[in-house]
């Protein structure tokens, strides 16, 4: 289990490769990556605020629950904070399991919890002003399935 909360960029390819290579008898590896996207066309950058201390604790709690619940062999979570430009990677999770259904479910579970239960807040810096990203009802609803 490896959880990192950091301001610096991470190398998605190298992290994904190292994670997959490190798996002994896990046949299935799933990764998810979130990328800053410019939906409206005027995004200059995205700023992510977090709650140092609580963030790490929350991610660890959810990672541990995923490990047990989906019998994962390993979990990796990297989440950045600070300022990022469109196209930059915000975060990634990776899961490894003997079978693909567990690896997929573990990654989706982690993402659903990370979205709505880990203390991160996104602010969009637009050409015309700034705006805190509103939580989406469907993200909260997604937790209902677990």
């Amino acid at each position, binding site marked *: 289990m490896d959880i990192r909360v950091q301001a610096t960029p991470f190398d998605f390819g190298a992290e994904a490769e190292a994670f997959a290579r490190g798996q002994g008898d896990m046949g299935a590896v799933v990764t998810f990556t*979130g990328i800053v996207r410019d939906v409206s066309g005027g995004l200059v950058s995205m700023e*992510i*605020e*977090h*709650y140092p*201390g*609580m963030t790490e*604790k929350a991610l660890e709690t959810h990672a541990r629950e995923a490990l047990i619940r989906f019998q994962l062999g390993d979990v990796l979570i990297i*989440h950045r904070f600070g300022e990022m430009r469109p196209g930059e990677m*915000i*975060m990634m999770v990776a899961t490894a399991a003997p079978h693909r259904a567990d690896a997929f479910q573990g990654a989706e579970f982690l*993402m659903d919890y*990370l*979205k*709505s*239960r*880990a*203390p*991160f*807040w*996104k*602010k969009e810096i637009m050409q015309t002003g700034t705006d*805190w*990203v*509103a*939580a989406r009802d469907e993200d*909260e609803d997604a937790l209902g399935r677990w």
Partner: protein
Amino acid sequence: MQLLYFAWVRERIGLPRETVETEARTVAELVEELKAREERYAAAFADLSALRVALDQELADFNAPLKDVREVAFFPPMTGG
């Protein structure tokens, strides 16, 4: 007791953290005390349904007791990932 504010709660109140002395027994009582202090607090706490609270870095309810709590954080719903 240490109070922390994040995202637009921090911006509305105008500071990221402060130390307060309080007799409040629950989060809701603490919020009432803060609202009574100044207009910027009243504005930040106007709609509790748009807010979340964590006690010593664990999510909690607004009616949770404050006994032995050292750190209270207020913030909007989270938007990570």
